[in-house]
């Protein structure tokens, strides 16, 4: 079939660009980015506000210091996915959220005591201001950042045959 203006335009529209993310819709992209940043923001605020109450829970490093570090990392990761939504940013957001969620679940249900420089952070209750909310936010951030990472992954491209080739 000879290439007309119409078939040429169709072919151009169908060819994926080099590193164009899978989530081409700006709505999806911004939903994932804002959602992830918001969830990490909730996580950060809760940890920052609760940190002083945990300064006395200490080994080499105090639980309060760990909470502040978590807050800073969560804000940084949230900003990264907002302003620079690349694979590394999604990985950072996923790592921050997943590690925080794993930690809160571990120390809620398992008394592991002190681990190396970490203090004994066992706390067998959700009755701490913001703790449950923060855990939900971390879970949501894990899901959203995971989706962001998947959607950002560059799909494998099959080269198109030249127009006019084949039967």
């Amino acid at each position, binding site marked *: 079939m000879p290439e007309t203006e*119409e078939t040429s*335009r*169709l072919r151009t*529209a*169908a060819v994926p660009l080099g590193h164009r993310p899978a*989530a*081409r*819709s*700006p*709505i*999806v992209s911004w*939903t*994932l980015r*804002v*959602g992830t940043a*918001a*969830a990490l923001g*909730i996580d950060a*605020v*809760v940890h920052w*506000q*609760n940190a*002083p*109450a*945990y300064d*006395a*829970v200490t080994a080499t490093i105090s*639980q309060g210091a760990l909470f502040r570090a978590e807050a800073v990392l969560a804000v940084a990761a949230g900003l990264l996915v907002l302003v620079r939504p690349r694979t590394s940013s999604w990985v950072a957001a996923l790592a921050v959220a997943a590690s925080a969620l794993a930690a809160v679940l571990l120390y809620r249900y398992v*008394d592991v005591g002190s681990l190396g420089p970490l*203090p*004994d952070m*066992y*706390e*067998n*209750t*959700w*009755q*701490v*201001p*913001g*703790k*449950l*909310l*923060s855990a*939900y*936010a971390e879970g*949501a*951030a894990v*899901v*959203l950042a995971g*989706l962001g990472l*998947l*959607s950002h992954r560059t799909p494998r491209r099959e080269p198109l045959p030249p127009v006019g080739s084949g039967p």
Partner: protein
Amino acid sequence: MRVWNGRGLGLPRRPLVALAVLAAAAVLAAGCGSDNNSGSGGNSSGSGGGGIYGGGGPTSTAGGASSVATVSAASTSLGMILVDGSGRTLYLFEKDQPNQSACAGACAAAWPVDQTSGTPKAGSGVTASMLGTIKRSDNTTQVTYNKHPLYYFQGDSGTGQHNGQGVDAFGAKWYVVTPAGGADTGA
């Protein structure tokens, strides 16, 4: 003729999109709800609001900040333990030093202090001479018993509950208090 290729308009074309929207909605719902203390029953009178999560500074619960607290002994499934004038369970914090509270901020929001506006009254079953008070950093007065600062637990929604018994939080355990002035560790 312009041909629509289905992209760029933000329409859900894959399950991924629907999942993303659902997850975002969950985040927004969590952020708006901020019902952080939904564990074993909420206590609407424990802590003042503060920040996005509702926790706040230490305020009184059943006793009220402007009332004189009463401490009594009550028979429960844990044995005889200290309760306030309305029957709510009182706790001690193992991290506290004698007549010195180690619980403030988020801790005091989860474990509201037993405040009083004057000398606490001794109800039945308690030793009046063991009752005392301490002044907290926020200038409120907290009831003590045998030099243990006394607290409520946000997880107790009413009288007869002692959900805070044996809870490990803020670096140490919390126990109900015996009329003899010690922790009821259940041992």
